[in-house]
C-alpha cells in the first residue's frame, strides 16, 4: 500500500504489463530517457531497454503505422501520443487501419494496440495541448475508448487495456496526473483479476437520489465536488463515472436515470456533437417516461480551446455544473 499519483499508477501498470508479456512494447516521442513529458514512462527504458521502450522519430502517423505493423506480427504496442492535439497526424492510420483491420480480415488480424493520450485542459498549456477529442474516436467503430478518473482506475484500466484484444484509445486526464490515492500498485490485475471489474462498466462514484451527474476522466472529480457542494444545499446527486465511452455502459446510466429522473452530462469537449449528445439521446430513448427533465449538457463551447488565461471559462466548473443542476431541478 502506497500513496500513488495517477502518473505513477500508469507507470506501474505499464511496468507490470511489460513484465507480464514480452510482446508488449511502448512507443512514443520522448518516452525513453526523458520518461515522457509527464514522466509516465519514467525508468521504463532503463529497465526494459530501447527495443521494448522505443522513442521513435517525430511522426505520429509513422508511429501509429509501425505499431500496427508490429501488432500484425503478434506484438502489443502501447503508443503514447505526447498531447491530445498531436493525434491528428495519426488519424488516418487510426480510422482506416487500426479500427478496421480486424473486420477487414474477418478476424484473422488482431490489433491489440493501446493509444495513450494525455488529454484535456486545466494545466495552463499553450494551444493544441488541452483538447478533448474523444468524440472522434467514440464515433469510430472498431475502437474502444476509455478514460480513467482516478489513480486506482488508471492503474487497473491501463493493464486491462493492454490485455484487451481490441485497439483501445486510452484517454488520460492530464490535469489529474498528480491526484493521489492509496493502493498497492504492484498487482498484476490481469493475472490475478480478483475484485477487479470490467473496464467497460461504469462506476457509481457517489450515490444520490435527486439527479445523476455523468462524467468521465477529468470531470469526475469536478462532479464529485459539485455533488459535495450540492449536498450542502440539501441536494442528493448521484455521480456516474463512465470509465468506458465505447462501449458505453448504458445499463448503468439507465438505472441511475430511472432512479433520479434527472441527468446532467459533463465533459470538457465542445458540447455540439460531443459524447454528451449520445448519452442524452440514448438515455432519453430508454427512459422517456421516467425523465423529469431533459438530459442537460455542460461542456466546452463551440470554439477552439482558448488561451490558458481564459481556459477557466471554457472548462466546466462547479458553478456551471450547479447552474445546470438547478435548471434540471427546476423542470
Amino acid at each position, binding site marked *: 500500500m502506497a500513496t500513488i499519483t495517477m502518473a505513477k499508477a500508469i507507470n506501474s501498470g505499464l511496468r507490470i504489463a511489460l513484465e507480464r508479456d514480452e510482446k508488449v512494447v511502448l512507443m512514443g516521442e520522448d518516452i525513453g530517457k526523458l520518461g515522457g513529458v509527464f514522466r509516465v514512462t519514467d525508468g521504463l527504458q532503463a529497465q526494459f531497454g530501447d527495443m521494448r521502450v522505443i522513442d521513435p522519430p517525430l511522426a505520429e502517423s509513422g508511429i501509429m503505422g509501425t*505499431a500496427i505493423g508490429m501488432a500484425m506480427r503478434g506484438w502489443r504496442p502501447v503508443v503514447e501520443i505526447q498531447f491530445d492535439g498531436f493525434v491528428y497526424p495519426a488519424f488516418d492510420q487510426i480510422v482506416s487501419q487500426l479500427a478496421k483491420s480486424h473486420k477487414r480480415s*474477418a478476424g484473422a488480424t488482431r490489433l491489440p494496440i493501446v493509444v495513450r493520450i494525455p488529454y484535456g485542459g486545466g494545466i495552463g498549456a499553450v494551444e493544441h495541448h488541452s483538447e478533448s477529442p474523444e468524440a472522434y474516436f467514440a464515433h469510430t467503430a472498431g475502437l474502444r475508448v476509455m478514460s480513467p478518473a482516478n489513480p486506482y482506475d488508471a492503474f487497473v484500466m491501463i493493464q486491462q487495456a493492454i490485455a484487451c484484444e481490441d485497439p483501445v484509445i486510452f484517454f488520460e486526464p492530464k490535469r489529474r496526473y498528480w491526484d493521489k490515492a492509496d493502493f498497492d500498485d504492484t498487482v498484476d490485475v490481469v493475472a490475478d483479476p480478483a475484485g477487479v471489474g470490467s473496464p467497460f462498466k461504469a462506476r457509481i462514484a457517489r450515490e444520490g437520489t435527486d439527479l445523476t451527474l455523468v462524467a468521465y476522466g477529468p470531470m469526475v472529480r469536478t462532479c464529485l465536488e459539485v455533488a459535495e457542494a450540492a449536498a450542502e444545499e440539501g441536494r442528493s446527486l448521484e455521480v456516474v463515472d463512465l470509465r468506458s465511452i465505447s462501449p458505453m455502459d448504458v445499463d448503468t446510466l439507465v438505472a441511475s436515470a430511472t432512479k433520479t429522473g434527472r441527468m446532467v452530462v459533463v465533459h470538457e469537449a465542445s458540447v455540439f456533437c460531443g459524447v454528451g449528445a449520445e448519452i442524452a439521446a440514448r438515455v432519453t430513448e430508454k427512459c422517456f417516461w421516467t425523465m423529469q427533465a431533459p438530459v442537460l449538457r455542460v461542456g466546452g463551447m463551440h470554439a477552439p480551446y482558448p488561451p490558458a488565461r481564459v481556459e477557466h471559462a471554457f472548462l466546466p466548473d462547479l458553478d456551471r455544473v450547479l447552474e445546470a443542476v438547478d435548471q434540471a431541478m427546476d423542470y
Partner: protein
Amino acid sequence: MISAPDDLIQLLTPEGQRVSNADFPLDITDDEIRSLYRDLFLVRRWDNEATALQRQGELALWAQCMGQEAAQIGAGRALAPQDMVFPSYREHGVAWTRGVDPVAILGLFRGTTNGGWDPRKHNFGLYTIVIGNQCLHAVGWAMAGMREGTNDAVLTCFGDGGSNQGDVAEAFSFAGIYNAPVVFLCQNNQYAISEPNTRQMRVPVFHKAKGFGFPGFRVDGNDVLAMLAVTRWALENARAGNGPALIEAFTYRIGAHTTSDDPTRYRDPEEVEYWKARDPLLRVKAYLDSVGTPQSFYDSLDAEAEELAQHIRAGARALVDPQPMDIFDHVYAEPHALVEEERAEMAAYIAQFGDLSARHGHGGH
C-alpha cells in the same frame, strides 16, 4: 513519356536479348525463365478474365495490372517463403507468386469482402486501398522481426502517385533509422489515375532513397529478369542486416486505372501503342523463342490458362454474398455491448419481416 528512360537497370532487352549487369549478375536457367513466363502469362490471363467478368457485371470493379506483370512477378519471385509482403491494390502478380487464390482477390472487387485471405497464411497482406498506409505496416512488421531475431525481409508496394504521401516518407524515415529489412517497391506505371509523372515528381522516385540514407535503384520494370535480380539483391541485403532499399520499377499501365476509368480522356493513344510494343511478356517470349522453346510448352500453357480462366469464372460466380448479420462479426475481437445490442435488434428485425425487404418489397434507394 513516349520513350523509355535510358538509365534503367536492364537484363533483357525489349527485343529479347539477355544483357549483363556487373552489379546484378543473374544465374538463371532457361527452364526458370520459362517458369517466369508461365507466371506472366497466367497473371495476364487472370487480369483479362477479371476485366471480362467486370464487363459482364460479375465484378463491381477491376484494377488491371496489365503491363506491370514483369515488375510484379520479378519482385514476387525474388521473395523467400518467410518474407512478408504489404501490397497496394494492384499487386495481382505478387499475389500470384504468394499462392493467393485469384478468386479470393476477386471477392474484394465483387464486393463480397473487404479482405479475402489470411495474411499470415500466404505471408501476403491484405490489399490496401488508402494510398501509402501499407508502407508503414511493412516497417512495423520488420521492426517486430528484428525483435524476434527472425531472418526475413519485407516487401512493400506503392505507386508513382503514392510516392508523394506523407506515410511513404515516414516509412522511409523509420526504415532508415532502424535499419529495418524492408524493400520498398515503387511501380512507376507513369500514371496516378489521370495524372502523369510530370504532376507527381520533379525527379525520378528512386532518388528519394538517398535522402533517407539507403540505396535506390531504377529498374526496367518491364524486364522480369532485372526485376528478379535487383529485388533478390535488395531482399538478401536486407536479410543480411544492411537495411532497406528502394526500387523504382519503371513500367507502364497498359490498361485503364480501373474498369471505371476512361484513359482516353487524358493520354495519347500513340503512347499506349509505344508501350504495348514493349509489353513485358513479348520480350520473354522472344528470348524463349530464340533459345528454341518447343511449341508444346506454349500449348500446355494455353491449356493451363484456360483451366485458370474457368476456375476464375466459376469461382467468381460462386463467391458467397455476405449476409446482414455478418456486419456485426469481427468489429471487435471481444464482446462490445453496443454491437451486441445492434446485432440483437437486427436479428429481431429480420425475424419480424422474414427478410429485409418484406414490408415495401424494396429497400428504397
